[in-house]
């Protein structure tokens, strides 16, 4: 009994080590769980990037599932995910709507002309007000909405082939969005 007690400090030490090691495996602490998950996309009204005189609201996102992608030209990761968005646009039936977040209109238009435009349309959020409504705290961020405008999935960070395969594709199957044979093969 007495002898077993001598090992107590070692046991405590190993427990601390185990917790610390598990900490390495945890998610990036910068990735907050979204408070908006499984809630309806908030009401908003925002001008179109291509045509700022025209203002659209939440109604424009309803009808079919849609991927709402928050991006900006000042955001390097947005450039990194752009190719993947283009591919999704080319190969699947998923509708993509952009939110140009705290950006300059001329630069944003230039970007779309240079790199291609994967978006159905792009909303303009000059001062980040729409971003605050969405709980956005950086770019890129993406929300997947079902046809009724419910947020079924949120991604903080870029959409890349791994995220597409492991996270988006299963969601799209549930939503019954055609993903084409090419994208399905990625599995």
């Amino acid at each position: 009994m007495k002898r077993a007690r001598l090992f107590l400090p070692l046991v405590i030490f190993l427990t601390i080590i185990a917790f610390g090691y598990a900490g390495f495996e945890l998610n990036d602490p910068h990735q907050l769980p979204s408070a908006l998950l499984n809630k309806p996309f908030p009401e908003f009204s925002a001008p179109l990037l291509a045509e700022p005189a025209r203002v659209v609201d939440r109604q424009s996102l309803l009808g079919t599932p849609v991927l709402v992608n928050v991006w900006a030209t000042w955001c390097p990761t947005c450039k990194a995910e752009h190719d993947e968005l283009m591919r999704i646009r080319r190969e699947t039936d998923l509708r993509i709507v952009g939110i140009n977040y705290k950006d300059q209109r001329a630069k944003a238009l230039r970007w779309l002309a240079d790199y291609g435009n994967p978006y159905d349309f792009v909303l303009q959020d000059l001062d980040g007000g729409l971003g605050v409504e969405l709980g956005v705290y950086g770019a890129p961020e993406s929300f997947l909405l079902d046809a009724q405008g419910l947020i079924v999935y949120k991604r903080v960070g870029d959409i890349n082939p791994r995220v597409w395969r492991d996270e988006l594709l299963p969601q799209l199957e549930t939503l019954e969005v055609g993903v084409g044979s090419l994208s399905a093969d990625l599995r």
Partner: protein
Amino acid sequence: MTLRLLLICAVAVLLLSFGPPARAAAQVDIYQFPDSQTELRYRGLIDEFRCPKCLNTNLAGSDAPIARDLRRTVHRLVVTEGFTDDQVRDFLQERYGDFVLYSPPFKPGTWILWLAPLGFVLCGAIILLRTVRHQGAVPLNESEQRRIAAIVGTADTGAHTEDGDVNVEDGAVNVEDGAVTVEDGAVTGKDAGPQMELDR
């Protein structure tokens, strides 16, 4: 003596842990307020929320663009829209989650956060109590043995002092926790009272 020091340290740590946290303030926005009361409320609120981008800075102390946006939002809610403090809290929590609140609500996901400190204090108290209780039995040194012998009168009374117990045939002397209790006053020492305490 060391025990008392230990206790003082424990109390000091406890008191310190209840003090207000140190907070930075580095924001430079210029906003208009209708009165100082509203400005105080605004300052209190931006002090209270955590910037979503920067793991441990509040809105007031952060230079991150998102913190600036949220300060502007709080200003709008408080000054233009006339929100109460609780409404502002709900507004931010609905959009950014519990993360923005420095004191998260008590719920299934957070109970360990709230109860763990209490658990640590309890563990400490149990260890402290056990340590104190085990400190009782300390063998007498030579001079103490001599004093005992003097008190009980004769040197060959069959005193067993190794384990701190002194047994005298007529009239028992029990040494426990540093106290010498003499029963029946059957002690022949010169100036020994019926009861005395050993000074250690």
